């Protein structure tokens, strides 16, 4: 069983217009989805990243440059990730199929974690 990182890109303009009630329902959906993976023994973990305050680090001529914002260039923010276990990419994709993130118009990036 390999580990996969489910990276959630948060660019969901739909959220701006959503009612509080609907947002609450969406949270319940996410929780149901992760609970399902958890029960199947496929969920290793998940974290939310801070929306703001991230840093970009670059080094030129031996000098470290620190720029504010995790998304100085990229339009899409990485909002958080889940770590799941799956046999292969096909199965990992299948596990993410009903992730509410997609319904909301968000993008999911799936990356296999190289075993150490």
């Amino acid at each position, binding site marked *: 069983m390999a580990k996969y990182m489910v990276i959630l890109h*948060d660019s969901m303009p739909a*959220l*701006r*217009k*959503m*009612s*509080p*009630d*609907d*947002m*609450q329902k*969406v*949270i*319940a959906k*996410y*929780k149901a*989805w*992760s609970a399902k993976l*958890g029960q199947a023994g496929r*969920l*290793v*973990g*998940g*974290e*939310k990243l801070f*929306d*703001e305050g991230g840093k970009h680090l670059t080094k030129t001529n031996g000098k470290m440059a620190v720029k504010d914002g995790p998304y100085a260039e990229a339009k899409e923010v990485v*909002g*958080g*990730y*889940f770590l799941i276990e799956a046999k292969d990419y096909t199965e990992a994709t299948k596990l993410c199929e009903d992730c*509410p993130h997609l319904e909301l118009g968000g993008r999911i990036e799936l990356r296999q974690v190289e075993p150490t």
Partner: protein
Amino acid sequence: MAASSDEVTPLVERLFRDEAGRLIALLTRLLGPAHLALAEDVTQEAFIAALGSWPRAGVPRRPSAWLLQVARRKALDALRRDRALADRLPAIAAELEDVERRDDAGAGEDPFDDDRLRMILLCCHPAVSGDSRVALTLKVVSGFSVSEVARAFLADEKAVAQRLVRAKRALRDAGATFEMPEGAARDARLDAVHSVLYLMFNEGHTAHDGESLLRRDLCVEALRLAERLTRSESTGTPTTRALAALFCFHASRFDERMDQKGHVATLARQDRSRWDVALISRGFEHLALAGTGEALSTFHVEAEIASLHAIAPSWAATDWARIVECYDRLLMITGSPVVALNRVVAVRELRGAANALVELREVERSGALDRYHLFHAVRAELLGALGWSDEAARAWIRARELAKSNPVQRHIAQRLDALASNDVDSEGIHPS
């Protein structure tokens, strides 16, 4: 905390909606009504943050405190960006910190309850046009989205959004404050609030189209806000009580108004043992307190009518004489043809279909109800009861053309069938 842990703080139903009202009211007090839109944005951002965080990190132990903290941070960010507010930043920052402390200390009692009350009154500020007041109340007090407001009032979403923008601009241009108005201004404002809640309830109660006979949410919201008004001395007037009583009595019959197949159950046919007794007795509590002042509003009379239905053991054993008297009084105050129509239904029970039909002719003469499906339904019932089947059928067909709600359409189809098979009983549709 990882999402895989089995920690789950359950999310209370309505939590976000309640929090929306609470946060918007709090922020509006601090930023001023001119910045209501900013208060809404900040609140929305706090929810978006929760949506990003809670599914992955788990629901915090105290969700409200979490939201408040995030809203505070977002508000301060927004203030730093907004030059017009920058000079007030230190004061507001201090106030926000204080708010959080009070929230932490507050056990049970919501320290911002008063903000919400003022918010309801702000939505009915004279600068806001009558049409926009309900929309604004639902949006910023009750936590409805623009599309939910639009759906509730069968309006175009864009039009509602524009209306809301105009309403907020009007508040800003009028220099509206967040203070509780005093004296005559408060009375006038409270009148406006009553109208808004009545409209809200009525819209939910009548549902003009679609599958659901009543958009219960609207009724529940109107009742909640009325209850909230009764809890404060400044707004809990006898008229507010009358309004709350009226809502309670009507709400007590929600479950019985439509059967499981989605058929309309008229008042005459409802199983009265299934009416909500708790709501009925709450209604009587309000009604008793409604009678403590000088005021006699239409809400008083309507609440009395509703109470007479609530205590009647059956349709036949209802105090129709008293109900007709109430309608007489209501008609005197309002002169409304819809009231006159309701009165005809009561007259039929008291003095028979023939007399009722004579009175209906009077109502008909004004022509105001020609496009109101219930007018034709009442007429059809009376004609049917008098054995004039062809005319009754024509009236039913006219009613069906005008009725927009599917359950009502089905009900009319049933009545037409009954007419065709000569199975007309003395029970009919009750327009209220």
